[in-house]
């Protein structure tokens, strides 16, 4: 039962990862690619860590997996904002 749920999460996570990468390739400009990045990618990792945490033998490992997800969530939201802001500032100043 847990195995099935874990597999389901992992496969769903992979779907979001692929959608994110394809979006990054296909979407026309930087600002629309932000969608592909921040939404799909974080959901992808979230589902993947959830799937792997269900599988973890020790509590410490499950906690670490959740910590990683939270770190990526916070870090990539901030970095994507900073990069977009940086690009925008350059565009408007030149």
């Amino acid at each position, binding site marked *: 039962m847990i*195995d099935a749920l*874990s*597999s389901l999460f*992992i*496969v769903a*996570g*992979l779907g979001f*990862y*692929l959608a*994110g*990468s*394809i979006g*990054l*390739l296909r979407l026309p400009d*930087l600002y629309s*690619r*932000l969608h*592909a*990045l921040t939404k799909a*990618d*974080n959901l*992808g*990792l979230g589902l*993947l*860590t959830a799937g*792997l945490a269900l*599988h973890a033998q020790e509590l410490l*490992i499950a906690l*670490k*997996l959740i*910590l*990683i997800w939270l*770190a*990526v969530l916070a*870090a*990539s939201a*901030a*970095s*994507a904002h*900073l*990069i*977009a*802001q*940086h*690009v925008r500032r*350059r565009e408007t100043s030149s």
Partner: protein
Amino acid sequence: MSELVAVSTLVLMFSLFLGLLRVVRGPGAGDRMLAMQLIGTTGVGLLLLLSLMLDQTALIDVALILALLAAVAAAAFTSQELETGDD
């Protein structure tokens, strides 16, 4: 289960490869850095799957360091140096 993990690792590596295409293509430095963020998160997921596949729990720590340092790289890209006279 182990087969699912092996195939998932391969699929995620492919996803990382797609992201790399955007890093190589650009066109602007901002596009490349944004794609770096995506391949960073993909690398984190890949390391987590590899840790299960190769039975190496330490790769979870590597994934965490990679996640944290991706933010450092983005910070380095966007920080603005003081101009002369700003001091």
